[in-house]
């Protein structure tokens, strides 16, 4: 393989890794938006809290990786449901914007709460032993492979849940028509809580993956990563699961490409400019369908 070929393969792996993490977060945004037409602005901070829970599990409890992952996902899921029950449920019939501001408030609360305990960035100890294989000049890190494969597995599981299980069908039904579904005996509140739990659980997984890939975490990391994952979900078509994944990998790809080609300070500039253009050209995203207003 040529030198530049090796380099690009490396970048592709980096992009896949970054995209996987974005995808796990973007899915939470998409699912909640699909079912409640609401942007859960606190979601990025749930991801951040997940990363810190992972940090705690690793440093205090010194648990093996799989257990850490499970605990993080469960705790994050619980956090997601808690937020939904306490802050979002009471505002379901309030003006749309109030729910958004509440979400922002919850996010701020989580950030500052974490900041209170950890004013400085923390280093997460290695959760897994990293093995690097040299394959024709490309450095394959086992960590990268694990992040990518685990994330893909979770996405496939989610896809199965949404398309084949009763819960998933109920979720899709509610996102199509919120008013008539309860009349068919579907426990709407329960399904909504489950949706939040799944979304938050995936965000917790993303937090663990992030700690694996980039071991330094800080309370403000949820803002940037969260907003970017959200934009990725919109680009892919918010409300659709496949759209979220596609958007996330596009974002990951674009980010890595930009850093590879241009000075790294241009990263955000180019990424956001591209995303802006995409959204203006096709607001409903790649896989989304335009909303038709009846007059």
């Amino acid at each position, binding site marked *: 393989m040529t030198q530049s070929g090796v380099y690009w393969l490396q970048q592709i792996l980096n992009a896949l890794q970054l995209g996987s993490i974005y995808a796990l977060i973007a899915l939470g945004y998409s699912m909640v938006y699909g079912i409640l037409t609401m942007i859960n602005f606190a979601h990025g901070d749930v991801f951040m809290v997940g990363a810190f829970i992972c940090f705690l599990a690793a440093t205090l409890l010194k648990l093996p990786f799989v257990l850490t992952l499970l605990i993080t996902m469960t705790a994050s899921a619980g956090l997601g449901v808690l937020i939904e029950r306490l802050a979002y449920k009471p505002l379901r019939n309030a*003006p749309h914007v109030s729910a958004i501001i*509440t979400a922002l408030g919850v996010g701020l609360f989580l950030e500052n709460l974490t900041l209170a305990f950890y004013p400085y960035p923390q280093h997460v100890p290695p959760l897994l032993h990293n093995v690097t294989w040299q394959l024709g000049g490309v450095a394959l890190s086992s960590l990268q492979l694990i992040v990518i494969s685990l994330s893909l597995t979770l996405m496939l599981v989610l896809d199965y849940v949404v398309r084949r299980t009763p819960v998933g069908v109920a979720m899709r039904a509610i996102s199509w028509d919120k008013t008539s579904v309860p009349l068919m005996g579907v426990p709407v509140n329960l399904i909504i809580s489950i949706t939040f739990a799944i979304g938050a659980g995936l965000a917790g997984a993303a937090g663990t993956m992030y700690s694996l890939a980039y071991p330094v975490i800080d309370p403000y990391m949820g803002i940037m990563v969260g907003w970017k994952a959200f934009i990725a979900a919109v680009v892919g078509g918010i409300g659709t699961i496949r759209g979220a994944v596609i958007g996330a990998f596009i974002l990951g790809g674009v980010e890595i490409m930009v850093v590879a080609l241009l000075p790294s300070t241009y990263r*955000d500039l180019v990424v956001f400019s591209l995303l802006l253009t995409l959204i203006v050209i096709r607001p409903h995203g790649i896989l989304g369908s335009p909303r038709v207003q009846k007059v």
Partner: protein
Amino acid sequence: MIAALKQQWQRALDARWLVPCLLVSGLVLAFAIAHFGLLNNYVQLVLIYVGINIILATSLNLVNGYMGEFSLAHAGFMAVGAYSSALLSMKVLPVAAHPALFHLAVLAGGLVTALLGLLVALPSFKVRGDYLAIVTLAFLMIVKSALENIDAIGGPRGISGIPRLTTLPWVFCWTVALLWLIRNFVYSCYGRGVLAIREDEIASDLMSVNTRRVKVLAFMLSAFCAGIAGALFAHLLQFISPRVFDVVKTTEILIMVYLGGIASIGGSILGAALYTLLLELLRPSTVAGLLSWLPAVVFDPLNDYFIRHLGVLRMIIMPLALVLVMLFWPRGILGLREFRGFIPRRDRRAHGATRLKGTDAHDAADSH
């Protein structure tokens, strides 16, 4: 007896000379405080911040509250105003020579930002709601990123050494002037068009409202004011960098708007004042100072367990308080209501004898 007194009070509030009188006394007071040092520098600083935040909140309210959009670009507007005015006053205009040139720099900063507002308005023709939120967020990020990458204006390190020209009386003047402009806009056919867009954009188009023009005007006015606030901010802090104008800053302004109440000038004043003052009040040093009269046996444990940690605690309490406010007043404290004084007399009379939100039944007695 009480009713008669109440009527007298309402009549007084309606008097033509009331508002000009209040404004003049306000200006005199502001000038006196600044010139004679009637309040210490810290308190003056806080008051200046209140003024700047009022401008920011009210201008954002125009787009987010009155027009019902969800724009996240406001910190970006502030940044453009701050940078352009700072560059003007430091490199182009000899502000040291003529203080009046400072206001020219501020005004220019506002005008440059208004042009950016025009740009931001364009996507709003096609996209609304959550999608516009993202577009405006992207704008904010692009502005911030662009500023970080232009080394000629300091790059990530920003600009320092900006002359300190923002004073209390000037902030008072600018705040009053901009609030007057916004209020005039709101109670004109363009402002009514803005409200119509929030209610039902399709119906507005069909009722002859030029929604594109109205959106452009609203965004430009909003950006203009935010730019001026940014300019005043720059010449107060004397140092600006791209990091200051990020999502967190926009979120702060959003909180002021929604806390005080959407579609309400009075609401924005309330929200900005509440937010700024509470945040300052809840500093460890302030609270310690205020409670210093308590006996040591009460004060010391209070200090150890509570006051000392206020710096961190307040940033936890504040968003919680915001969530609580949203749960009970989803539209904000003064949402969709307005102080009588801001509503033009003509409007008050035209709405006649029936109940108008924010006024009371004594309107019937006052109108003819």
